[in-house]
């Protein structure tokens, strides 16, 4: 509500013209500001307070008179709730009436006042809503920064790519600090040895635990089938279950993820936290799962280069999330496109090599958008030619960014050519038909579908079959007709199931 100070000047300037005095108060009745001198006769404090309460409770315009004075108010809302009220008051005989000493003709009757306050309130609400949206996006970005930081730190620590005890200790240290938890530990088994070795846990100062606490809590995991998911195990509040409670007198929450890669399980990576005010976020879980997977890969794989590349690929993936955070119309787009492509690839019976190439190309197809300013990405009006050229450049730029990563070599054609049209009218090279690499044609179908589908659902229009109709119209001109058919099957048979 404090952002509303900007309206103080506006309303203060209106006051001398119409002799109306304005106040903005928050939902608790606290004054944000008032215009002119405080006018006690127009705004008796108790009366104003009661009126704010009524406005909040009933969520509509209120009007009241007392002798020659009147007082009225309009709620200020955002999408979800009433945040406060805009009040106006004055002397009924003065002010807006014709023939008075102001140059304005007008009335202070309820209907006119409701209309005036309504339009002023709309202005204020727009500001409040925008402000709130910006804050929400900023907070998400803040979390993104934390995640990216953690990735970068761990990437720099895993330079030797040998999972030594020292490195694990450092990793635990990082987890402890950046995830704001009280203990971080890993328990890993080495090959052909099913006994889990506990890596010395890292704990915060306020944590005193029994020697075998971590073994005990890990032992609970397989026993408690309901809380065990495939990849992770979570206790949101240890007071819920006597099994958890008896391990530690202080209430805690606990999260452990399986250290596994391609079906091979190596152990657990766990976090414990005493702050029950917060919960483990979905994003934290995802991050931890991906860290655990990377740990598993390092254990699994002795090929140094492959690991390094995998790491770079994962770094690049986190960049994709960063780009999508910028472009509000494509959030989650790459991940969805990748899902569609994988389903299409499976139906087409691609070789393992092509399937892998498609997997990376689809998730990374928009990576070249990284340098494009937000103002262009989010522009609602038609783009200028120069701006369109910048957007078009993202295909080639993307492949340049990824070129140094040997592992992604087969994915580059799919990224460069995903905006080619089947009839040769696309970019960057104007390839036509089968000249366009298969991976690029597949991505084009999935990409087009998601763009239409998402922008429609964003606008709240009806979806479903009509999107398919549009795709069919594009078959042959923009899209490969054979692949549109494959997509239709994916859409009706594979995607409907969930």
């Amino acid at each position, binding site marked *: 509500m404090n952002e509303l100070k900007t309206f103080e000047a506006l309303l203060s300037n209106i006051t001398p013209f119409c002799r109306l005095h304005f106040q903005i108060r928050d939902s608790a009745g606290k004054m944000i500001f008032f215009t002119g001198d405080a006018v006690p006769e127009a705004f008796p404090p108790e009366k104003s307070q009661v009126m704010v309460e009524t406005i909040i409770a009933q969520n509509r315009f209120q009007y009241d008179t007392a002798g020659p004075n009147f007082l009225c108010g309009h709620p200020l809302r955002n999408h979800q709730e009433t945040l406060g009220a805009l009040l106006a008051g004055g002397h009924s005989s003065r002010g807006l009436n014709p023939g008075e000493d102001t140059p304005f003709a007008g009335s202070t009757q309820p209907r006119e006042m409701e209309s005036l306050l309504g339009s002023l309130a709309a202005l204020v609400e727009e500001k409040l809503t925008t402000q709130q949206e910006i804050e929400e996006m900023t907070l998400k970005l803040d979390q993104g*920064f*934390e995640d990216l930081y953690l990735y970068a730190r761990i990437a720099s620590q895993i330079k030797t790519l040998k999972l030594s005890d020292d490195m694990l200790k450092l990793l635990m240290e990082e987890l402890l600090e*950046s995830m704001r938890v009280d203990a971080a530990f890993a328990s890993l088994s080495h090959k052909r040895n099913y006994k889990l070795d506990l890596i010395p846990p890292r704990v915060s100062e306020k944590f005193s635990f029994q020697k075998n606490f971590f073994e005990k809590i890990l032992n609970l995991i397989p026993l408690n089938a309901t809380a065990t998911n495939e990849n992770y195990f979570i206790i949101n509040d240890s007071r819920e279950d006597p099994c958890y409670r008896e391990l530690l007198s202080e209430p805690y929450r606990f999260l452990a993820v399986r250290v596994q890669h391609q079906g091979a399980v190596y152990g657990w990576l766990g976090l414990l936290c005493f702050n029950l005010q917060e919960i483990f976020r979905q994003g934290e879980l995802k991050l931890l799962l991906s860290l655990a997977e990377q740990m598993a890969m390092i254990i699994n794989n002795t090929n140094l280069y492959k690991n390094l590349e995998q790491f770079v690929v994962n770094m690049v993936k986190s960049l994709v999330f960063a780009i999508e955070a910028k472009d509000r119309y494509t959030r989650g787009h790459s991940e969805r496109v990748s899902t569609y492509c994988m389903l299409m690839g499976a139906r087409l019976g691609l070789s393992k090599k092509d399937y892998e190439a498609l997997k990376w190309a689809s998730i990374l197809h928009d990576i070249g958008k990284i340098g494009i300013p937000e103002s262009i990405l989010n522009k609602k009006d038609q783009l200028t030619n120069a701006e369109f050229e910048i957007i078009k450049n993202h295909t080639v730029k993307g492949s340049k960014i990824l070129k140094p990563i040997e592992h992604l070599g087969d994915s580059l054609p799919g990224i460069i050519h995903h905006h080619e049209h089947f009839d040769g009218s696309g970019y960057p090279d104007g390839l036509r038909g089968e000249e366009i690499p298969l991976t690029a044609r597949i991505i084009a179908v999935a990409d087009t579908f998601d763009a239409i589908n998402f922008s429609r659902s964003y606008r709240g229009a009806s979806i479903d079959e009509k999107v398919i109709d549009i795709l069919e119209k594009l078959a042959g001109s923009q899209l490969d007709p054979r692949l549109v058919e494959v997509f239709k099957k994916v859409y009706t048979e594979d995607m409907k199931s969930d």
Partner: protein
Amino acid sequence: MAKNKKILIIDDEAYIRRVLELKLKNRGYEVLTAANGEEGFSAIESQQPEVVISDIMMPKLDGKTLCEKTNPIKKKRRFLTIIVTARINPEERDWIAQMQDTIFMEKPFSPNKIVDAIEKYLKGRE
């Protein structure tokens, strides 16, 4: 807690300013921002912030020159400078070490760690 202290953020990237600004405001600090070194320098002189968070690569006045210009001010009035930089090389480490009350954070940085550093510094001064 030592709140309503002034913190100045100098960075030419608007989204970095915005993230740090909101984070620090939510913690109760008064936050000022500047989009380049020159604006930043005049804000340091006129607003006297307790903490300055600054990028190195900036238009008009780079972070290193800014530090060199503000270092004499610190003889009279102490404040913390946090340099945020993409890559720290030995030369940078050296000149930062020469400056009074100056630390660095590598990019990508953790907003939480910046808050920790600020709170640690302000606590130490109480």
